[in-house]
């Protein structure tokens, strides 16, 4: 019984870390226009809409965060193998992984923008300097929290996988949670505040993203500020719940019978499917012109 109580405590701590990680991850990716909003940021200059939005598509969020967290975990593993204290090892691993993330971000922005020279899109050096550092700060929080929760799963809960493999798995899960939950808020809402709410993006509006702010020209820190409030929190809750519920069902039910943990997992998926469907139908009925798609096209 005692180890179950201890396990639930670790589960709660891991869930809290995951919530912070998810929130930071979504804000980071939104400041870098990573994920699905990226195509519109890339397209805008080609349609004649030059902008000062940061564009650092390294890869989709799941593979990118798979690398950052796996790298952070791998470096932390190596430092621990060198008999360095785990706390220091995880911090050093996260710092180095963040350095790699920052370098990738600069080369992605400069490369993409240079390839758009034909359309007159300049490289803004001030954007490069100010946005990269902000994304690195958020990425550090996301990587540190994820590697820490992987270390907790490995040492406190006794998971058999080595730290780098856990980093890979939970990094991909983190990227997927941020990409699926937080991104639409930036890609479908923030970029198209000049369109009718809930109308989707008609082809005629492609690339016509909002480029001007309340005062002056909008940049990606404005987008990060906007999405941190709801998109970031939603991503945090999403990843936090994934980590918490996954560990909770294992810690509580595996002790009784390993099959119970699997049955509870399947039941959870069914319950969430029903909840998701209910919320989607309710959302469509309550907001937006989705009920008559033909009118939207006209």
């Amino acid at each position, binding site marked *: 019984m005692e180890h179950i109580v201890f396990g639930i405590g670790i589960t709660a701590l891991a869930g809290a870390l995951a919530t912070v990680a998810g929130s930071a991850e979504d804000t980071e990716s939104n400041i870098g226009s990573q994920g699905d909003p990226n195509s519109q940021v*890339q397209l805008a200059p080609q349609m*004649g809409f*030059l*902008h*000062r939005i940061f564009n650092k*598509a*390294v*890869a*989709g969020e799941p*593979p*990118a965060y*798979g*690398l950052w967290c*796996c*790298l952070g*975990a*791998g*470096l932390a*593993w*190596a*430092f621990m*193998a*060198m008999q360095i204290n785990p706390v220091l090892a995880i911090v050093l691993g996260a710092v*180095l*992984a963040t350095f*790699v993330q920052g*370098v*990738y971000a600069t*080369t*992605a922005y*400069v*490369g*993409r*923008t*240079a*390839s*758009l*020279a*034909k*359309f*007159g*899109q*300049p*490289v*803004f*050096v*001030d954007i490069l300097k100010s946005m990269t550092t902000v994304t690195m700060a958020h990425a550090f929080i996301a990587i540190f929290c994820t590697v820490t929760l992987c270390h907790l799963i490995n040492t406190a809960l006794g998971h058999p*996988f*080595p*730290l*780098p*493999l856990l*980093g*890979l798995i939970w990094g991909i899960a983190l990227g997927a949670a941020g990409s699926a939950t937080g991104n639409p808020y930036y890609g479908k809402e923030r970029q198209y505040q000049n369109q009718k709410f809930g109308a989707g993006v008609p082809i005629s509006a492609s690339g016509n993203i909002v*480029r001007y702010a309340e005062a*002056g*020209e909008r940049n990606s820190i404005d987008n990060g500020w906007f999405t941190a409030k709801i998109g970031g929190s939603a991503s945090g809750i999403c990843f936090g719940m994934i980590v918490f519920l996954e560990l909770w069902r294992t810690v509580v039910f595996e002790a009784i019978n390993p099959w119970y943990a699997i049955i509870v997992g399947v039941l959870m998926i069914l319950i969430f499917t029903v909840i998701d469907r209910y919320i989607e139908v309710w959302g469509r009925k309550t907001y937006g012109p989705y009920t008559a798609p033909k009118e939207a096209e006209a």
Partner: protein
Amino acid sequence: MSVKVEVIEGGVPHNTILIAGVVSTLVCIYLTYLNVVTQTEMFSFFGGLAVVAALVWGSHTIKVLCSYGIGTGVPSAGMIAFGSGVIAMLYATRFGMLAPVVALILAAIIGLVLGWVSNNILNMKIPAMVQALTEMAVVGALTLMGFAALITGTFGFEGLTTGTVTMFGMTLLTHQNSFIGGCLIAVAFLLGAIAIQHPFNACLGPGWTQDRMLMLTAECAFLSMIVAAIMSFALISAGSAIISLVIAIIGWVYTYKEYMALSKRDAHSWLDSKPIPDVEGQ
């Protein structure tokens, strides 16, 4: 059949890059064998140089393949390269000194089958698919072998699965403190998979230039080599790891500066704290 959406104009022909890539990668991996000959770990850094050579070749293959609208993102090409390459690499490590050549042949066969499946069963019908997937599987396998040699000093199965741990002054053999047992292979997998796809993903567009993209590949490869060299401190002697680290840092600083200079050359303009310029007709 898929339509070719981008054209390669000028630059070094792909076949030249292919031949140079295969030869230099194999030579660099074999140079790490000097570790066994001289009973040291000083030559591990050649594994990192093999990674650089293989990735430069592989990123150009991705350019050839992704010039067609393949219907999936550029990053997927990096994932399939390493996903198919890791099987060949792991199997080949059992063959001792022949490992790099076995990895090359086996990966080519796996890539060929995957290319055939993609074109004929999944009906993707992309002309470059079979050759590109074959090349990328080989690149994936050889890059992983290069990382393995860089981090552990060897590309043999025993060396990759066995490490040492010191307890109360006693040195014990363990499988947990090793390249495969500690799953550093997962880190090598993703370091390579992102480094191989990023250059084309970051440089695609109407203003694509070959020299800029290949310089970025070298930069990504040296950056990966830096972190891999830091991880190698856990498995090889500190002096050998420092040699790898210093070479990686020098290579990275040089290629990063060159890449920024090439981007400045290709960019429309390079502005600092300026508003959005006016476009004609607005």
